[in-house]
């Protein structure tokens, strides 16, 4: 009995070693970004922390997030154990241990303490720019592997994103507690800053122009308080996100949201001083509402860096065609200098996003850019197909 147990333990250790080697290998091969999907949060009336370990969204999914994907989000749950033909001798209706005894459910949780996750995005992109040759490229910059260690379950978590390419890594500790039944947390380490709607698309104007993308993480401290329908996040960081670190001042980023089952409204603010003592203030409002299968989300931001004032906004509509199939229309606006008229640019997008099974999502769409005629790049048309593998 003891020998068997030893053998089993050694087998588990070997398995764990292989797994760790696989993870490290994957990371060396190249890894980066998991993306949040705020439209799903609006559809379900969830806060970001419901489905993501990082309480402000993005990155590894929680156990509930994985359950949600596998049981409700994906068009189909592929139960590979049922797909494979059963050996005749295994079919025994009377003995449940012999027949149908295993499930294909996999949430990335290895045991009570350790859970892993991953995101891999492969992109095929075609860009047609006026007066320029058409560009086509394959791209796989978006690759991430996550490690979540619940040292004290639901209380103390260590979180690590191993990433490569253009995306920043996140590595932080998370201490969760409750104050009279109201949850709060303290996050310390390197993380994405809590600002606005954390859209999946980093090229969206509201993300790219404000600088709150998955390519920018900052080192510091974040406090979050989520009583009832409220979600309050305040981060104090070095400010390396958009300026050189001087240690003379810190960056303050905050976001407050009221989350209801069918709608949400929120506001964000960020202030940062760079090495030349130029202060950039970014502030905005965001929200969303769900009407049956139709969800709308919007965000408007103002960027003031003492010299230029910019305005940027997005309006997005998502239609849940059927389980696992989403159709997205979005309109974006960016005025790069409020003092100059008729220099704004716009972007229209039409995207179809099927979650074909519990681990696979496709995204395909067109983006039509409109800008001043002198700037060819701001009038380009983009066509893309993306394959997203995740767990």
């Amino acid at each position, binding site marked *: 009995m003891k020998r068997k147990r030893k053998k089993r333990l050694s087998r588990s250790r070997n398995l764990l070693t292989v797994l760790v080697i696989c993870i490290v290998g994957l990371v060396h091969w190249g890894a980066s970004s998991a993306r949040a999907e705020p439209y799903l949060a609006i559809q379900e*009336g969830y*806060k970001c922390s419901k489905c993501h370990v990082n309480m402000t969204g993005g990155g590894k999914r929680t156990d509930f997030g994985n359950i949600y994907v596998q*049981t409700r989000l994906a068009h189909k749950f592929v*139960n590979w154990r049922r797909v494979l033909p059963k050996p005749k001798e295994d079919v025994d209706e009377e003995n449940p*241990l012999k027949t149908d005894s295993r499930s294909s459910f996999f*949430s990335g949780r290895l045991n009570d303490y350790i859970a892993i996750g991953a995101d891999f995005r492969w992109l095929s992109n075609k860009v047609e720019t006026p007066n320029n040759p058409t560009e086509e490229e394959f791209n796989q910059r978006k690759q991430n592997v996550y490690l979540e260690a619940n040292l004290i379950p639901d209380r103390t978590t260590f979180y690590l994103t191993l990433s490569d390419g253009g995306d920043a890594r996140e590595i932080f500790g998370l201490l969760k507690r409750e104050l009279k039944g109201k949850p709060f947390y303290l996050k310390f380490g390197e993380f994405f800053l809590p600002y606005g709607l954390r859209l999946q698309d980093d090229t969206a104007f509201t993300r790219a122009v404000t600088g709150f993308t998955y390519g920018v993480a900052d080192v510091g401290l974040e406090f979050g308080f989520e009583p009832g329908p409220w979600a309050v996040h305040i981060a104090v960081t070095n400010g390396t996100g958009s300026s050189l670190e001087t240690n003379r001042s810190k960056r303050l980023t905050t976001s407050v949201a009221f989350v209801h089952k069918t709608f949400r409204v929120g506001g964000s603010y960020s202030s940062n001083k760079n090495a030349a003592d130029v202060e950039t203030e970014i502030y905005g409002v965001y929200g969303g509402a*769900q*009407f*049956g299968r139709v969800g709308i989300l919007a965000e408007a931001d103002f960027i003031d860096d003492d010299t230029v004032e910019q305005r940027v906004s997005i309006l997005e509509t998502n239609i849940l065609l059927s389980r696992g199939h989403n159709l997205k229309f979005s309109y974006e606006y960016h005025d790069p200098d409020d003092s100059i008229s008729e220099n704004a640019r716009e972007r229209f997008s039409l995207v179809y996003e099927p979650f074909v099974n519990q681990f696979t999502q496709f995204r395909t769409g067109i983006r039509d850019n409109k800008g001043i005629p002198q700037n060819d790049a701001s009038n380009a048309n983009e066509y893309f197909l993306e394959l997203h593998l995740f767990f």
Partner: protein
Amino acid sequence: MKRMDKKALTLGYWRLVLAGLIVVLLMPTAGRSQGESIAETVEALQAKVDSLTRKVQLERGRTVYSRACSPCHGIRGDGEGPAAKGFDPPPRNFRRGVYKFRTTVSGALPLDKDLERTIREGVPGTEMPRWKDVLSEHDIKAVAQYVKTFSPFFEDPDSLPLPEDILEIPESRPFEPSSASIAAGRRLFIDQDCVKCHGENGEGDGVEADELVDDWDVPIRPANLTLRHFKNGKQDRDIFRVFTTALNGTPMPAFDELTEEQRWQLVDYIKSLEQKGWFYSLFKENPNQVRHPDPEEKTDESGA
């Protein structure tokens, strides 16, 4: 672990076979007292195998529960898992041993097949997903057994449903829905005071709707019967079952004093309230319902 348990079971099985063989070989010559003693041994062996099987099943149930159920229902089964906050309705607290969806009389504990059915089909319109696509039938049964361990009532023989507490839900309806049965159902809907909670048009806006609380004084909303989802399933038989069994822990009573025919008439009326059309589909249908479609084929109580 699984392989070892399997081996232990196989060992138990062979012990049983061996004991059976001994019984067969000794039967012609053995005296009455010897036979009885062998029978006792066989019985003891059988009990041992049963206990081992249950142990294996509970262990499997615990593993699956911790992965798939504890994020909402909590590792202690108290409905306070890390994801439970903000859910409306909140996840079930298994420690209370009170279950809405059963085939037993009002106030009684559910049967195993009732628990398995809820796990298998989920609860439409809530966060409870349909697990039959994801978990194997074996795992569903194991989780149901494990969930029972949270409440002491399932261990108490006096609390278990008696044979007369188990209700027979008819496999098929005795008559087809008609305008007459819908009209009769409407009269019953008013006479039985359903309107007080569910409202004149079944939209869950009756005069008492705002005052309703469950058995733990938590406010509870009556169902909006015009929506397409019914938590206990939307087949005629599912709705009939609710009228017959009541929903334990909620103000919804059993209408078992009504005749079977009257309960089917009520079913027809409830079904007639359902909103239809593209406008409903696009702008009013709950995304949760889109993701939790009705079973394509009618499944029987055992889930076969």
